């Protein structure tokens, strides 16, 4: 158990180092040097760069001259908020739809869900986002078009997570502010989670349908266990393996979607910040944005690996 945990950590570390080599390359493109390096050769400079990264000294923006790390911290919570919401939506709704389809395999519910998810993931994020805005914001008028909260509210940024800030900061809007923020979150989160949710549902269905043919499922049936228990415990526990792998791939799809969704909904997160930095060729900011988003992907995959390791007893190797 411990040994394989160690192995997973090493893999994550190696991919993080690979990432820093890339961002080091980007940082070299800045008009003014990012850091005062002691050495002249690029190789020792890279290690100095690593040192700067660890001490939160990520350089200054080419355009505004601000420290990019503080800039990043301003935008990061908004992205995390959106990402975690979409991720929860994608995983749980996708899992639920997949299970429903697998339970009724061949039936009308299965066919309906599977065609819906096919439509879901063949539609680009921006198109889907615009459709949602058209329908829910402009036609029905029940959802805001953009932003994190209405301008009528002023919320003191404490954690910069809007949902948390509306709850803990001192204001006299009552719970209205929280629900307003939540309402702002719904459309971008649905837009962003749509594709991963569809993939999740399809993968859940196909791996469950496959597993339900296995012999241990027949054994479980012969014991007279209820069908729900067979699916949720016996089949899903084994399907988790492949679902976690798929989940790891979803996060990178989410990241690309994040940039687009933030742009459409004027969400002040890392994605839109990164996009504007790209259009202004602000390399230090690009470097910081990439570093943040990619580290998030690595971190997420690390978590999934550990979960997979915990869930599959065959992967847990004893130390001896």
């Amino acid at each position, binding site marked *: 158990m411990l040994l394989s945990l160690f192995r997973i950590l090493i893999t994550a570390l190696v991919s993080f180092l690979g990432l820093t080599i890339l961002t080091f390359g980007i940082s070299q493109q800045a008009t003014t040097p990012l850091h005062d390096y002691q050495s002249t050769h690029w190789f020792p400079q890279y290690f100095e760069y690593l040192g700067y990264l660890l001490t939160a000294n990520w350089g200054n923006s080419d355009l505004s001259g601000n420290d990019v790390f503080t800039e990043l911290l301003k935008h990061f919570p908004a992205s995390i908020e959106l990402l975690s919401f979409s991720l929860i939506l994608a995983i749980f709704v996708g899992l639920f739809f997949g299970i429903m389809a697998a339970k009724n395999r061949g039936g009308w519910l299965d066919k309906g869900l599977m065609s819906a998810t096919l439509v879901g993931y063949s539609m680009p994020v921006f198109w889907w986002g615009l459709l949602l805005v058209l329908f829910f914001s402009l036609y029905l008028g029940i959802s805001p078009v953009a932003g994190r909260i209405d301008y009528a509210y002023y919320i003191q940024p404490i954690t910069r997570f809007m949902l948390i800030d509306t709850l803990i900061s001192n204001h006299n809007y009552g719970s209205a502010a929280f629900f307003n923020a939540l309402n702002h979150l719904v459309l971008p989160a649905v837009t962003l989670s749509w594709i991963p949710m569809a993939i999740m549902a399809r993968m859940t269905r196909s791996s469950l349908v496959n597993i339900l043919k296995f*012999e241990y499922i027949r*054994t479980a049936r012969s*014991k*007279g266990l209820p069908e729900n228990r067979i699916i949720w415990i016996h089949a899903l526990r084994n399907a988790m393996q492949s679902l976690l792998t798929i989940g790891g791939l979803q996060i990178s799809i989410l990241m690309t979607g994040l940039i687009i969704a933030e742009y459409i909904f004027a969400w002040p997160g890392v994605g839109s910040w990164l996009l504007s930095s790209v259009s202004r060729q602000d390399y230090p900011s690009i470097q910081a944005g990439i570093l943040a988003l990619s580290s998030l992907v690595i971190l997420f995959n690390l978590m999934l690996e550990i979960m997979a390791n915990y869930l*599959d007893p065959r992967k847990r190797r004893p130390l001896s």
Partner: protein
Amino acid sequence: MHLLHIENLSVNFKTDHGLVTAVDKFKFKIDPGQVIGVIGESGSGKSVMALAIADLLSPSAIAQADLFTLEGQDLNRMSPFERKRLITDNISIIFQDPTSSLNPALTIGYQLDETVRSHGGGNSRQCRDRSLELLASVGIQDAKRRYKEYPHQLSGGLNQRVMIAMALACKPKLLIADEPTTSLDVTVQSQILDLLMQLNQDLNMALMLITHDFSILSETSEKVHVMYSGQVVESAKTYKLLTEPYHPYTKALLDSVPHFGMHYKKGRRLYNLPGTTPPMRHLPVGCNLGPRCPYASRQCVEMPQLKSLHGRQVRCHFPLIEEAKQESK
């Protein structure tokens, strides 16, 4: 009253080519404490028959029986839910490959516990005690350690013992063992068979032993049904069947087994029945064995019926009575 009484059980599968018959008019009776064997090649429908009795067939299969009573209760008249309940309470089944029959992601203990619980085992502590008791009763020594382990940490023989323990959790009146020893070593095989026979005597549990190996049946079962392409071709008392087979197929099966002390001349080969089992979609006209049978004649284009003969049942126009007598002389 028989424990289980089945008349004319037929199983058909819905396929793209129409209905395919996997089991044709299977008759079966078993009394408490009895051991009955079913023997046949792969594809003879013996496993499908077992699954049909245990109500585990896939939705594409249609099983019908003229009579299906368990402990005198007519299963044909029950709702599917009631039938499932009655069957899982009285019949347990163990399968060929024990390691893949156990869930790899759950501990042995967990899988035993949930079985005990689903048969009214009380609270978690009582379930655990009962599980440990069951593990001990199937001859697993360090039950406490095994309880926490996963199927991949156990050998095939141990896993089959766990399967048997799980089957015993519902105190079954009938245990169906579908090739219980096929994937095991010969030594482990005899241990598992000994265990099954011991449980059969101690608990007065009826045992239906499905196999393709005569050596297993010769020492265990009272009566044997020989199956060929979905039909019973001969059923008789085991020793009678082994000594004087009436059906050409039974004889061919017996002749293809090497005997201890058999005299082998150089170049002499063991008997082998030419051809293979016909696919269920393209059965020959008349007797299913017809094209392969060395005794076949013109009359065999008509399907023979199961006839009673000297206290046994044979499905053949020309049972080998004369030949059996001559050979025994």
